[in-house]
């Protein structure tokens, strides 16, 4: 019997059968389970629970605060592992500046503390505890030098201690932390009241959508004309995920996968519309871009189809800007080496190829000072997600 694949997004449900993909706008007055049953109950009746596979990005991922000893090793390694686990980094604190750093005002899902190779001690002191007093967090994990474990554990009883992510040769060893964060993310998805009920529909593990998309990347050239290095940009209602070939990064980190990912939690065109507009208004290029698109800034306040298209175009620009050399806060991708950009998610249902091309031309000309743009591929039928779901069934991940 064939399989039924379901993606629970923040704005739409996507349901994939052999006959094709259909999508349903969510009713936010109902919980996810009830809404799904109302809209697709008759479809589910045709499948066994074992043949139904679900992934979800509806919760937007976890947030983390990283406290590290140096930028080049502790923070860089922890950031890379967190991004790859689908975690959103809300701030990073360099330990030498912890006394001047402000604690985040929002609740942090997990705090990561890292510093020093095994064998050196007294890296952390009272300053850390003083700072943590002002941080509201749900989990806290330590992945630094072994020598400080007993000192820190005595002061922070809830501290989860894992193996040091910095090896004795100053290389990254992210296995344990990645597994911990991925499980935490998974537990967060499963723990959500709405998602929990979905196990009444499926007998299979529910995964996060960015994880599923990431799994499909090594196989992507089977379905699309994609030339490495490439990026996949998944712009949805609440979040934007960017998956990229590691060939685009020069950070001397050796990782198992050839592809990393980055999740922008508050960059979406529906649920995160306000933060998207805020980010746009603060971008130095945006007014020039709006003029290039023949609209004024008033379009950002409008509720129309035209406004939605502009927001989608802005989100492509902003996501590329955020990973360009102009924005060192995030991972810097060498976009001059980029051969292909693949767009997937809700954006492909709204924008035409030409509209995406316009933005790419503007970005490459203004930000990159290049006249040539990468090849653009539009994944109109969520084929990347389908590929990931099918591939995931045959290769169960070790860490989930």
């Amino acid at each position, binding site marked *: 019997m064939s399989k039924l694949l379901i993606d629970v997004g923040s704005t739409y449900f996507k349901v994939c059968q052999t006959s094709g993909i259909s999508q349903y706008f969510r009713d936010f007055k109902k919980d996810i389970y009830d809404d799904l049953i109302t809209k697709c109950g008759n479809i589910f009746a045709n499948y066994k629970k074992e043949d139904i596979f679900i992934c979800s990005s509806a919760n937007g991922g976890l947030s983390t605060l990283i406290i590290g*000893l*140096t*930028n*080049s*090793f*502790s923070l860089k390694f922890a950031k890379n592992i967190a991004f790859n686990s689908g975690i959103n980094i809300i701030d990073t604190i360099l330990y*030498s500046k912890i006394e001047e750093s402000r604690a985040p005002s929002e609740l942090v899902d997990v705090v990561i503390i890292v*510093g*020093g*190779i095994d064998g*050196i001690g007294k890296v952390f002191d009272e300053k850390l505890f003083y700072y943590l007093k002002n941080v509201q967090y749900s989990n806290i994990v330590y992945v630094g030098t072994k020598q400080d474990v007993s000192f820190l554990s005595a002061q922070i009883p809830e501290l989860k201690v894992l193996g040091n992510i*910095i090896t004795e*040769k*100053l290389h990254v060893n992210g296995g344990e932390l990645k597994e911990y964060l991925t499980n935490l993310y998974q537990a967060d998805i499963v723990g959500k009241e709405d998602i929990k009920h979905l196990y009444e529909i499926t007998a299979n593990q529910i995964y996060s959508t960015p994880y599923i998309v990431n799994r499909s990347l090594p196989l992507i050239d089977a379905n699309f004309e994609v030339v490495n290095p490439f990026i996949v940009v998944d712009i949805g209602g609440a979040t934007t995920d960017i998956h990229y070939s590691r060939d685009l990064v020069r950070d*001397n980190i050796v990782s198992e996968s050839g592809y990393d990912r980055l999740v922008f939690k508050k960059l979406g065109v529906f649920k995160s519309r306000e933060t998207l507009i805020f980010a746009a208004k603060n971008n130095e290029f945006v007014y020039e871009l709006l003029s290039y698109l023949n609209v004024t800034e008033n379009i950002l306040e409008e509720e129309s189809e035209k406004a939605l298209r502009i927001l989608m175009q802005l989100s492509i620009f902003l996501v590329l800007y955020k990973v360009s050399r102009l924005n060192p806060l995030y991972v810097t991708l060498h976009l001059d080496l980029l051969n292909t950009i693949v767009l997937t998610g809700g954006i492909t249902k709204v924008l035409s190829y030409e509209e995406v091309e316009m933005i790419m031309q503007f970005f490459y000309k203004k930000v990159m000072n290049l006249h040539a743009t990468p090849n653009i591929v539009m994944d109109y039928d969520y084929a990347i997600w389908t590929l990931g779901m099918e591939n995931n069934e045959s290769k169960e991940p070790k860490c989930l």
Partner: protein
Amino acid sequence: MNPLQKICVNYTFNNVKIECKIIQILGQSMKVVTGVVGNDIHVVANRLIDISLQARGFEVFNLGVNTSLEEFIDAVVETDADILLISSLNGEAEGWCRDLQFLRSEYDLRDVVFVIGGNLAVGEAAQSDIVPKYKSYGFDLVFHQIDLNTGLDEIERFVKERA
């Protein structure tokens, strides 16, 4: 008691007797962070420095070629190293190492010995011009166009005197 000492360790590997000299401070091997600064890919020289340091009993953290100054300082902090030995062959160090004083001041690195060696200028330059310039950047020892072993002997002597 002199905290710095050179001890001999003898061991046998595949029936071959090997004598190894290990430089220690208070019983611990001295740690050296090394690498090539800037856009410089002279990897052979880098490997020779790594091997020579290991042969002299240092624990080596080799960051390889194309390394930024910030990475060097950060590696010293992460490893609690005793010596930072930067090498440069294409002369780019002159531009890359100007911020050393600033980066040093970010951390408490008073006990670390800062060394630079190789070809430290683009084109011809006299020792008498180069050495004071790099010392003003914050280096304790500067070796411009000096034989590797001579430089390493000088580092050992300097560390011993300082201890």
